[in-house]
């Protein structure tokens, strides 16, 4: 943890002062760019991502001999990191067409590195007990019938759809308008708040309709059922104001910095090859959340038990 | 070493654009009206006086009459609006910053009503402060500060801090601090007003003793007439920023210039201050008198036994010359009345 960079940066300041101007990445530990050394992994704040990062880190360090620097960052800042050279790879990217456009097409500092094999599912969920009690609730057409169940102090007399994890652009408001649902979106503001509310809805048997996604460790703990919205067809979400269809399934993918990809190191190849299933990820997530393991312990356990899955990721000849 | 001060037509006006007041018709307005019209407050108005070397010059007046402002103008702690001040013949208002600082560092020192000690410094370092900022070395300034503490009777308190001392002791520190730079002129702004009466008397005695021992020129501000009368060689009375009267204690008590001064001195036992000059009358033609005359400078009180015992009037002399006579008839009103008395 201790980094004695004082002398180095002092010298650097002097040098830079002599030749004028310091660019934005001056003085920081330079990214590996291929040399066997450090790989800078962005770690976005959800457990599924941490599972990816745990396993990739374990393999990079134990099997390929790299040092991995994990950087705990929100998505948007991770992408910025490609530009400043502080991030080499993002392991689980959920769409983010806007960021792809900025950083891959316009700034040309990042490139895609293929699918993680995980499928991201976004949708509206209710706790299992509600489905047991009101079997037809899972069809959106019946939601208005049950709107009064979902009334809260925040929903202004309508039913409440708890959404608003700000990390993701959602269509919830438009969906409610266009499907003529007697509901209103309450912006929870964080994933943790949604999870907590979902846990309480299960434990207290309180009605809750909420925006959520898989893979997610919570599903290993408790059952929630997805509401059927009008099925997704290609292009049905083209105009964000007129959306009246379900969210598409996302192919979660990996993004790496251009420099990192161009160097084509074994680290880059491993990240490119990394591909597993939702069940794999949920298993590691379960180790992390519910069994209290550290990232390294969880990764070690999974790696020991799933050699067939990760063997093909290791680049040939290393 | 002693020092002289002359002050001529000194004005200090507080408020917006104070220059416009002096020398215009605004200058003659009473304080309240001036304030109404311009928002300016004339704290010192056209004051002139001269202090002689070695003199104790007292400035007296009610609270708010401009005493503090006046004394601060002397070393430009408050910048005067107009007028001339000279100390030892040197024009103070013409001094540049460095010269002014030299004046404050070496020639004039001040003692304040609320002491103005530095709470974070020991007594010794408070007294040595003036020397320290002159750049005098530690050993030397501690030696001199120690001497000053002995002079004001604070031996053994060197390493205490101001908050550990009583008010009287704190003011002794203030006094020692002023004396430490060996100034020729000492300014006192109501130095004892915040002290208990008994301690105040002690301190007054102390000042008189110091004046006798070290012989400096003193300008002493007070609102307490008794203090003014005990200490002052001459007293200036200030009202609403204007000088009403300057004179010896005797002049003030015997011949107050107006009702304001008269009110001030009303309760003073006249026989304690006035001399025979103030109650004598012209001798009548062919009047017979006692053999032993009294000098005109005798204070009335001291003459009482003689005059009352005498069967005849007593002659009052100045040197060899007879200037008047007194008898019991002249004496009694002076003893019992506090009313205004015009010298005969």
């Amino acid at each position, binding site marked *: 943890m201790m980094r004695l960079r004082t002398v180095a940066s002092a010298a650097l300041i002097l040098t830079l002062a002599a030749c004028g101007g310091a660019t934005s990445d001056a003085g920081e530990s330079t990214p590996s760019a291929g040399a066997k050394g450090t790989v800078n992994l962005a770690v976005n704040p959800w457990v599924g991502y941490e599972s990816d990062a745990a396993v990739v880190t374990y393999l990079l360090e134990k099997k390929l001999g790299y040092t991995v620097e994990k950087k705990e960052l929100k998505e*948007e800042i991770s992408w910025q990191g490609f530009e400043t050279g502080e991030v080499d790879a993002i392991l689980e990217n959920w769409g983010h067409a806007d960021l792809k456009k900025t950083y891959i097409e316009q700034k040309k500092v990042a490139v895609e590195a293929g699918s993680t094999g995980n499928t991201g599912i976004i949708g509206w969920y209710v706790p299992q007990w509600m489905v047991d009690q009101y079997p037809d609730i899972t069809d959106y057409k019946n939601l208005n019938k049950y709107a009064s169940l979902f009334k809260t102090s*925040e929903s202004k007399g309508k039913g409440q759809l708890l959404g608003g994890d700000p990390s993701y652009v959602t269509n919830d408001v438009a969906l409610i308008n266009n499907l003529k649902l007697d509901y209103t979106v309450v912006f929870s503001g964080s994933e*943790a*708040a949604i999870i907590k509310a979902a846990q309480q809805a299960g434990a207290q048997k309180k009605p809750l309709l909420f925006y959520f996604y898989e893979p997610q460790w919570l599903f290993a703990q408790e059952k929630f059922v997805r509401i059927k919205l009008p099925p997704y067809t290609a292009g049905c979400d083209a105009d964000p104001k007129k959306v009246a269809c379900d969210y598409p399934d996302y192919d979660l993918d990996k993004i790496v910095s251009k420099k990192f990809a161009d160097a084509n190191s074994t680290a880059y190849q491993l990240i490119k090859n990394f591909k597993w299933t939702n069940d794999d990820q949920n298993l590691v997530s379960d180790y992390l*959340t519910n069994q209290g393991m550290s990232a390294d312990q969880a990764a070690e356990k999974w790696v020991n038990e799933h050699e067939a899955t990760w063997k093909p990721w290791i680049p040939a000849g290393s | 070493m002693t020092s002289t001060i002359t002050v001529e037509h000194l004005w200090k006006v507080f408020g917006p654009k104070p220059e416009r007041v002096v020398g215009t018709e605004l200058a003659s307005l009473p304080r309240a009206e001036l304030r109404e019209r311009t928002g300016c407050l004339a704290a010192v108005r056209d004051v002139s006086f001269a202090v002689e070397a070695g003199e104790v010059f007292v400035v007296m007046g009610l609270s708010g009459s401009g005493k503090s402002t006046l004394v601060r103008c002397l070393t430009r702690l408050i910048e005067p609006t107009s007028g001339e001040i000279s100390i030892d013949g040197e024009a103070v208002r013409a001094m540049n910053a460095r010269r002014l600082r030299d004046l404050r560092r070496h020639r004039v020192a001040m003692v304040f009503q609320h002491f103005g000690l530095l709470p*974070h410094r020991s007594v010794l370092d408070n007294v040595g402060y*003036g020397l320290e900022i002159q750049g005098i070395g530690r050993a030397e300034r501690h030696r001199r500060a120690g001497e000053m503490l002995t002079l004001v009777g604070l031996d053994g308190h060197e390493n205490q801090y101001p908050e550990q001392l009583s008010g009287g002791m704190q003011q002794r520190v203030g006094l020692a601090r002023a004396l430490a730079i060996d100034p020729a002129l000492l300014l006192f702004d109501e130095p004892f007003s915040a002290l208990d009466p008994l301690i105040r008397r002690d301190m007054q005695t102390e000042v008189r003793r110091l004046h006798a021992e070290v012989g400096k020129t003193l300008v002493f501000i007070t609102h307490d007439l008794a203090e003014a009368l005990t200490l002052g060689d001459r007293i200036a009375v200030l009202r609403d920023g204007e000088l009403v009267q300057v004179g010896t204690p005797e002049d003030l008590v015997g011949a107050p210039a107006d009702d304001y001064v008269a009110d001030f001195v009303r309760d003073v036992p006249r026989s304690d201050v006035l001399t025979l000059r103030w109650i004598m009358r012209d001798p009548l033609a062919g009047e017979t008198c006692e053999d032993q005359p009294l000098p005109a400078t005798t204070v009335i009180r001291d003459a009482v036994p003689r005059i009352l015992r005498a069967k005849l009037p007593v002659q009052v002399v100045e040197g060899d010359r007879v200037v008047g006579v007194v008898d019991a008839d002249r004496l009694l009103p002076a003893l019992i009345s506090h009313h205004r008395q015009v010298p005969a």
Partner: protein
Amino acid sequence: MVAVAGETAPRRVTRRRVLWVLLVVAAVGAYLGFRTAGAADSDDAAAFRFFTGVRNWVDDNRDTSPLFLYGVNYLRLGVRLLVDAVQAGLYGLGFAGLVAAAGAVALVLAGWRTALVAVGGFLAFGFLGLWAESVDTLVLTVSAVLLAVLTGVPIGVLAARVNWVSATLRPVLDVMQIMPTFAYLAPMTLLFLIGEPAAVIATLIYAVPATIRITELGLREVSPTSVEAATALGSTGRQLLTKVRLPMARPTIVLAVNQTIMMALSMVVITALIDAPGLGQNIIRALERVNVGVAFDAGLAIVIMAVVLDRITTGAARRRPATRGRSRWVVAGGALVAVVVVALLPIGQDLPRLSFAGPVNDLTGWIELHWYDATEWIKNVVSAGLLDPLESVLTSTPWWLFVLLVAAFGTLVSGVRSAAVAALAAAGIAGLGLWQHAMQTLATVLVTIVLTMAVGIVLGVWSARHDWFAAGLRPVLDAAQTMPSFVYLLPAVALFGASRFTAIMAGFVYAFPPVVRLVDRGLRDVPATVVEAAVSAGSTPRQLLWKVQLPMARGGLLLAANQGIVLVLAMVVLGGLVGAGALGYDVVAGFSQREDFGQGLAAGFAIVLLGILLDRLTQGFHHAKGPR
């Protein structure tokens, strides 16, 4: 004459009262006449586009513009240098060495009792198994506080001496203090990169206003007589500063450092979002796993650190000058030697682990399960009875009417100038295109302030009257003020749902401790002689409180209200994380989504303007009547 004067005074009072009544009637009338349904805020206002444009410009120019090449980037390198030096120093001491060093510093600055607290506290980091994280947090805090003192004290001195500097700084400091960090954290990493430098600078921005303000206050309070006496002895301007003003303001400046430390510590968790190392990381990670117990351990470490640093600095401020001097150097020397010796001893940090995670999780789990119905009921009553009506009045008032009313009532309460500033702030909010959201937030903030003041005054009165109560309350206040709110946010969500009420509770917990303290202080500062006089006149304790102590403590109460407002506003963003929506959510979304950056920053400014509005409106009470 006397009779006339006797009549005018009451007449003026009645006239004022009539004016009030007329205004209220006019306000109600105007509201009923003009109220609107209130169009929802667009998500594409001119202001949002402008802020996004600024960000894009920075983004495009930070490697070409000389401003960045020669300014910002060197700044970052300098900060990096400082952080690395502090880090090397603290880690270099090792576990035992640092514990000893903490004890030694506390001993020299604040006496042996505090030294025991410091040693105990630093040992606790080890027992909690959070040693490295705690040191990382300490590194960031120390670096930010060093920078804050190095820049803030000179600026505070300047502001105390030059009035226009002070006047110019005031709104700038308001913005720095109230603007939520979330609103500028993302671009911060563009300029200062991910990690410590950006974290330290973000912390600096939040904490340095306290340094500047308190330093200025301290210098302005230096006794003018002492300054005059020193001037009369011929001191130069520099001598006055170094020998009189600064030493005399020392206790207040130490207090400024103390407050700076507390502010800096409260930023630690948020900077973890840009990869600043330390305890904040533990808390954020625990939050992802919805594991309150683990977050609690880390939160406890922050509380302990805050308490230790607080005791050391307040102890240093209180030290009497008499206890200084040569013996102190002997103590300092001895302590230094002891630290070196301990640091060289091969003591490891293999301590038995002590974690509260299990019990805390059990406890919160139990509470969440069994209190839910009661808390749900409270939430519904407050929301329907208080929050909804207030919000609907505020949101259905047209903005121009609101601005007019602010100007009118503001003039009555605080005078024309303050009212003008307040009205301008209100108009500015409308100009930002966030009117509806701002009014929703205002409703939540007002309810929180009322709750905070009510509870704060009651507890403050109790604490001023009963020493045992004050003593028992102190650790609770310490913990409530320094425990990162992220830790108790989740149980609050569990009990109150994702709602405005949860935000109110979070804001309340954060804001009530200073209110209690200031009320307590204000009451205790009422001169003993006055209390004695009232008691000897036969006042009952109740009369004493209502007729003497509370009126005389007005200054303290108003200061408490003022601080309450600032702190509640600081929690608006946190409310955005737990379902309160409105401006808080806008800011959070702006941090998370590049596209929403402009709206997020605009919402940040709207929060600042709300702060200025409330401050100027209440300011009048300070000047209007009575002392202070």
